[in-house]
């Protein structure tokens, strides 16, 4: 049998592309996201900017969305324009270059998990339940581990379905 693309041989496979990926997953090790600028979540939450103001997809669909500069400039076209970092992003926006945010949370394709934010918001799950207290963070940190046990515990508590096909489909 010919090897499939991305596989070393057609005989033995892990559920991950490499043994390294498998080991990292088993040990819950993830690549650390490095962000283009140190975005201060704490300041924005402190000013009582609601999460969904910037992560505007969260109550509409599967993905909360990582906002781009267009969203920043809604406020920062007028607010805090004297700060060097704001001037820096204003200049980037004028050049048409967006901030290349890296993902902090999320499941790899190999996990076969389909997560949808909107029903969790409808069920009034707090953002902090899964994302930790971002009011204490500058750039977001992976402070809550999204293991299957973490999901299932909460589903059990809230009598949400725990059928496999709820998340794995």
């Amino acid at each position, binding site marked *: 049998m010919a090897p499939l693309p991305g596989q070393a041989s057609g005989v033995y496979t892990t559920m991950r592309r*490499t043994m390294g990926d498998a080991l990292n997953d088993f040990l819950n090790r993830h*690549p650390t996201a490095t962000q283009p600028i140190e975005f201060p979540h704490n300041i924005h939450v402190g000013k009582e900017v609601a999460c969904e103001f910037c992560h505007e997809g969260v109550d509409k669909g599967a993905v909360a969305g990582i906002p781009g500069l267009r969203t920043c400039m809604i406020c920062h076209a007028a607010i805090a324009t004297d700060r060097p970092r704001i001037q820096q992003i204003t200049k980037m926006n004028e050049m048409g270059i967006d901030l*290349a945010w*890296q993902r902090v949370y999320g499941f790899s394709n190999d996990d076969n998990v389909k997560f949808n934010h909107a029903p969790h918001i409808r069920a009034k799950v707090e953002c902090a339940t899964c994302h930790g207290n971002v009011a204490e963070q500058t750039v977001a940190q992976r402070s809550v581990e999204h293991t299957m046990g973490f999901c299932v515990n909460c589903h059990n508590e809230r009598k949400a379905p725990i059928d496999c096909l709820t998340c794995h489909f």
Partner: protein
Amino acid sequence: MDRRSFIKLTAITGTSATLASCGNPENQLIRFVPAEDIIPGVAVWKPSVCPLCQAGCGLTVRVMDADADVVRNGQAGVVRIAAAKKLEGAPDHPVNRGGLCARGQAAIQITYHPDRITQPLKRAGDRGQGRYEAITWENALAEVVARLDGLDGNQRAVAAVSRGGRGHRAAVLRQFLARFGAPAPMTFDLFGDDVLRRANALSFGREQLPTFDLANASFVLSFGADFLGTWNSPVAQNVAYGLMRQGRPGRRGSFAQIESRMSQTGGNADEWVPVKPGTEGVLALGIAKAIVDGQLRPVSGAGRAGALIDGWSGGLASYAGAEVERITGVPAARVERLGRRFAEARPSVAIVGGPALAHSNSLFTALAVNALNALVGAVDQPGGLSFTPQLDVVSAAKAGGPAGAAAPALGQFAADVIAGTSSPQVLIVDGANPVFTTPPTWRVREAFGKIPYIVSFSSFLDETTALADLILPDHSFLESWTEAVPESGAMTAVASVAPPTMRPLHQTRATPDVLLEIGRTLRRPLDLPWQTFDEMLGASFAALPSAVADVDAWTDAQAKGVWTGTLPAGLAAPAPAAGASAAPAAFAEPQFDGDASQYPYYFLPYPSNQFLDGSLAHLPWLQEMPDPLTSGMWSSWVEINPATAAKLGIAQGDVVEVTSGHGKVQAGAVISPGIAPDVVAMPAGQGHRTYTRYASGRGVNPVDLLAPVTEKTTGALAWAATRVQIARVGPPDGRLILFAGGMREHFEGELR
């Protein structure tokens, strides 16, 4: 596991774990600020119009966020865009009513095609070599304007070849040429229906393709028309056909297909009637005579359509059963039974098209079937045929202006250029590839080679565009304003329109806008009444009555993707001038090129289910879509009757050579019981020399064999009027690719 191998294993996995944590290289790319607000993960559906054939089906397009690779100011990066991801049929569109054919589904691949022309190109190598260099839009447009300005006083030296059509886009090109002082654009459709349009003008006073109310029909008699596959408005006809078969509890309509090679439509028929090529008109009149003789309808019922047939009022004496059997090969008893059935099933309708109208005597065939329809009262009646009221685009958009000179026929144009009696200086190519679709005997390629300057608006480097000096690539249909004025398929007047569903991916520009801009910047501006294409569409649709209170027709049409309703008197396309003096048509033996002793087989090229005439061969989904009858894919093939194959020692998959008096091609043999023993058939569409990575050098083009036989009255190419010989060249060599091993209803061994 011993200690040593454990250390080895951890060493290996440790290394790859370190590598894996270096992060995703895609994150190293520059991200650009998106130009629009997009909610990630949430789809919106926008209307559009399918561009692939003239049917003009309405689409609904799923648009979602996506990351696109782009180059901005010389920097490569990614940008989040709202991208079209899936096409479906628009549920409320009066033509396709929610349906969409497999070809339409694949149209999404046009936008994202890896070999799309992404910016203006200027020829860098010899003509036809395909070497081009990038040029800015400003310089490209300046070059075209300078060329056109340089023709001052010789305006007629501009020629254009386009796809034609009845919509606004075609009207912009016609207006451009007319105001410039050049002849109208030439059009050539290999499997075109000009013969039927002419016949309908004579019989019914409407020069257009008919719409069939199959949903209410009880019996359908189709003369060669592949109306469920590729002919006329296939999705509209499929929807109506489904209702005819299963939409009326307790009453299932039936149909008979008359043809010499079983098409997809023939495969669905209750009765399949093989007939000698070019004699379909005789069979139609034989059926008509059976109806008249059986006192089932009065001969006078056919009115004007009947009067066009020689001997009609005399009861069609020369179409008696025995004579019809001799000419067509259909037994007299069967002709009579079909006639009785056709007259007794009410309502019934006859359809004619495809190969039946691709002979030297086809106008007669079309007129005969028209007379048969008129005899049973199928015209403008429920369950019969009618004509979709046509919006006159020019008067709706208040274009006015000069009418312009008529276009020459493409074959004549090529002959004149080669002979030197005509010397066009500039050729404009829009949406047509005549170098591929015309018979080589017309020498279109050679003629185009003599034209000093060729401008193409194509998005792909096809055989005609490869000759161009300048390529000004169009947007894809999803990136631009699209519209269609369907010729048939709906009972009411219909005009589709839709704004762009997504922003352009590349440095392309909408062709109608480019034409308008060129018109404005000429030394003597053309005075076209619109600045942009959407301004023209707005003017046109605003002239239509709105179906909804409080919303004007233009706003409503943009939201729905379609306008439908009753046309105001001034906006309906005028009926053609009555050609009353036409002499009554009589059967003449169809002419075939090639001597029967040297070329014993009738050659039947047919529009492929995947590629039509070849214009869709660049879409890989269609390349891998199996043909519904042979299961052929990614290749060309020759369909041969089992008896003929046995006689010539040809087995399934063998390489055979098909030779006509004008060319030869080699392809794999498909042994098919659904073809007459004296006919061999080949699908068109493959055999491109250059047409993207998916079509180039794949298969052969049956058009290479065609003789320049034309229909006697209309001059249309008689594409089924060539005779060929076939011979086995060798055993299967892998060039024939079938999805199934063999014909599905036969064992492999049985075919050998």
